[in-house]
């Protein structure tokens, strides 16, 4: 993983001096250096935003092309700034583009084999793609070092190998403990820099990203200046007018990001009004929703007693399930809890009724009781996963009855979408796969024979 150091980083010793000398020798003639490596935002099938930060203010230049040695196209932003953001459009879907960043005077990074991105599959296309899900990861925020966060990252890197990670979903609490810019540098940009220059990062806001502030003072928290998220429907879905909640399409999946921390969570509020309209307009095969506070959890947070969790369960879930949401991801509890295929459970855990709410009581594992099956956008058939242990574990009773499995384990989640099929895995910090499930979508109810063909052929 590459780590950005300030040009005048303090340090002593011969090795450090040598490294510093080498670094300074490699500086461009302008003397400007990167203080935040390039990271990818709002990638779609035809467009890409690249952001980076420099110590000195200049204009911005993004060069890109199909060959790292010949970046034939470029896009400039004339504004003189240290916070650089360039968006390119007119790209081809599912295509690898190499790029470099810098100014009109000098190239600062890229133009090599490691700085590239794949554009997303075309909207509605059935192409396969991979999602890495990180919940409550940011424990390296305060000091820049955290063995748990590092182990979870490295385990995913080993698991993933050379496969391309199309997007990274962060479920909030990305940088402890109060979401300052310096904590973001430590816990996100230094920790995941190697991924972030190749994979698009999407996020929802958590309580630690706003220093626990809820509605009044959140406009100026670093989270909103660090990230670029769609407000005008630029990446698919309906325009929300805010980066707090938004939607985007990748291939045949519609992703919905909600804000359980700072926005009005009431049924008539702006966020859920937008959600209703967005889902009504959605024509994608899959719908995945994510936000920070879990609707069901008995981990380090209790969804029976905490207001944000209750409000999202009571108000957002009925809307999502009316439109056939398939998977809901959240964090906040520092554990991994994954439900059966369920629906219609909007009360406390005491109201859980497996006879009416559990649509499939199996594991969802192909090698076990079989993948979860779902006909089209059938309502009230979704899997709910709490995956908030990418930086720490914090126990809890871990006994929510809607959950198929509840684990007090470090790890992150991997989603592989391919046509009608979703394969999800929870990768421990050791590299072991501690849980998995699959979901298969059919256009109509399948016979046992056709299902076996689909699964095993």
């Amino acid at each position, binding site marked *: 993983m590459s780590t950005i150091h300030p040009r005048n980083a303090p340090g002593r010793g011969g090795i450090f001096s040598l490294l510093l000398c080498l670094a300074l020798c490699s500086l461009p003639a302008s003397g400007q250096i990167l203080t935040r490596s390039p990271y990818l935002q709002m990638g779609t099938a035809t467009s890409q935003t690249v952001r980076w930060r420099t110590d000195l203010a200049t204009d911005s230049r993004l060069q890109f092309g199909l060959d790292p040695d010949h970046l034939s196209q470029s896009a400039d932003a004339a504004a003189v700034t240290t916070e650089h953001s360039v968006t390119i459009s007119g790209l081809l879907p599912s295509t690898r583009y190499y790029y470099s960043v810098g100014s009109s005077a000098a190239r600062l990074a890229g133009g090599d084999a490691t700085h590239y991105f794949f554009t997303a599959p075309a909207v509605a296309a059935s192409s396969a793609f991979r999602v890495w899900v990180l919940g409550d990861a940011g424990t390296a925020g305060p000091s820049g070092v955290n063995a748990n966060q590092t182990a979870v990252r490295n385990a995913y890197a080993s698991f993933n190998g050379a496969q391309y990670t199309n997007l990274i979903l962060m479920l909030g609490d990305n940088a402890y*403990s109060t979401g300052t810019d310096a904590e973001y540098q430590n816990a996100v940009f230094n920790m995941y820099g190697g991924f972030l220059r190749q994979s698009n990062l999407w996020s929802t806001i958590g*309580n*630690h990203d706003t*220093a*626990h*502030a*809820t509605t*009044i*003072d959140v*406009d*100026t928290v670093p989270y*909103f200046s660090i990230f670029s998220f769609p*407000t*005008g*429907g630029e990446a698919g*879905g*309906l*325009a*929300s*007018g*805010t*980066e*707090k909640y938004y939607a985007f399409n990748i291939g045949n999946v519609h992703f919905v990001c909600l804000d359980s921390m700072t*926005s*009005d969570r009431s049924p008539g*509020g*702006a*966020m859920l*009004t*937008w959600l*209703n*309209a*967005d*889902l*009504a*307009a959605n*024509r994608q095969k899959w719908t995945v929703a994510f936000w920070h506070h879990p609707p069901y959890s008995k981990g*380090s*947070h209790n969804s029976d*007693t*905490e207001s944000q969790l209750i409000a999202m369960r009571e108000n957002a879930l009925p809307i999502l*399930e*009316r*439109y*056939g949401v398939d998977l809901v991801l959240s964090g906040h509890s520092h554990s991994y809890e994954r439900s059966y295929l369920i629906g219609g459970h909007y009360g406390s855990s005491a109201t859980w009724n497996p006879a009416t709410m559990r649509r499939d009581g199996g594991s969802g594992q192909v090698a076990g009781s079989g993948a979860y099956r779902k*006909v*089209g*956008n*059938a*309502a*009230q058939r979704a899997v709910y996963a709490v995956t908030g242990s990418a930086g720490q574990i*914090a126990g809890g009773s871990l006994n929510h009855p809607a959950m198929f499995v509840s684990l007090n384990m470090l790890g992150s989640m991997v989603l592989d979408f391919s046509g009608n099929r979703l394969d999800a895995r929870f990768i421990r910090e050791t590299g072991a796969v501690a849980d998995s499930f699959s979901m298969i979508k059919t*256009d*109509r109810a399948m016979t046992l024979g056709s299902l076996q063909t689909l699964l095993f052929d």
Partner: protein
Amino acid sequence: MSPCESRCVLQVAVLTTVLWVQTEISAHPAIEQQIHDINRALAAAPADTGLVLRRAELFFQHEQYKAALDDLAAVERIAPGTPDLAYRRAKIYREMKRFDEARILLERHVADHPANAPAQRLLSRTYRDLELFDQAVDAGRKAIESSARPSPDDYLELAAMQRSSGAHPAALKTIEQGISKLGSIITLQLAAIAIEEQTGRFDAALQRIDALKSAGVQEESRLVWRARVLTRSGRAQEARENCLQAKTALLAQAPQRRATPANQELLAEIDSLLSKDTPSNQHRVQRP
């Protein structure tokens, strides 16, 4: 107060709150942990007002308002000129529903910091809670004007206050400003449509619904919204046509999508609107 006295005051405050923390806090472990960490740091540096301020904020978020006020009082004794103390106190008083005290502090704060959007927003809500609607609207407008990143909620909140006091044209103007700033987003347009309808401007409402066609909303929903407005404006035949178009479009969808509860509810509403449109009504409408 001498430095020694100040230190004693803070030490007592720290000890008191440590004991209180141990008995009261349990709902939010993350906040509890941070307060615990600050308590430990304060034991070594009891005059660190930055830490006390941070703890006050955490107490506030943890709904331990008296402890938060006590911490702010301690800071004021040590460093009377500390900025934003009035604002911090006002936030707490509002949550305690002591609106009159919050108002006084907020008015004082925004007089010194007129471009502080969160403070203006808080003052607007406080005026609203005190049923001082004109002042609430004025502060709400200033909050939006000074906000670096206004959200749809800001415009909707201000417009709701204006509507509640009967100022429908002003509410519509607020929504228009939001659309101008944020784009033609569904939440603002639906609010505008509701105002147009409420004030009997049915054609204007229909124009807004037509404009949503390019915004990507579900066409069937859009047609039903149209039918609702047309029905209320007495244009039954056009409403019926819109309903029939919506129904045809819904029935043309793939079976699994048509079967979602949301679309089933939409279908039921269409049938309900169609059933209200009795043959005698149709006849009356069609007659020249």
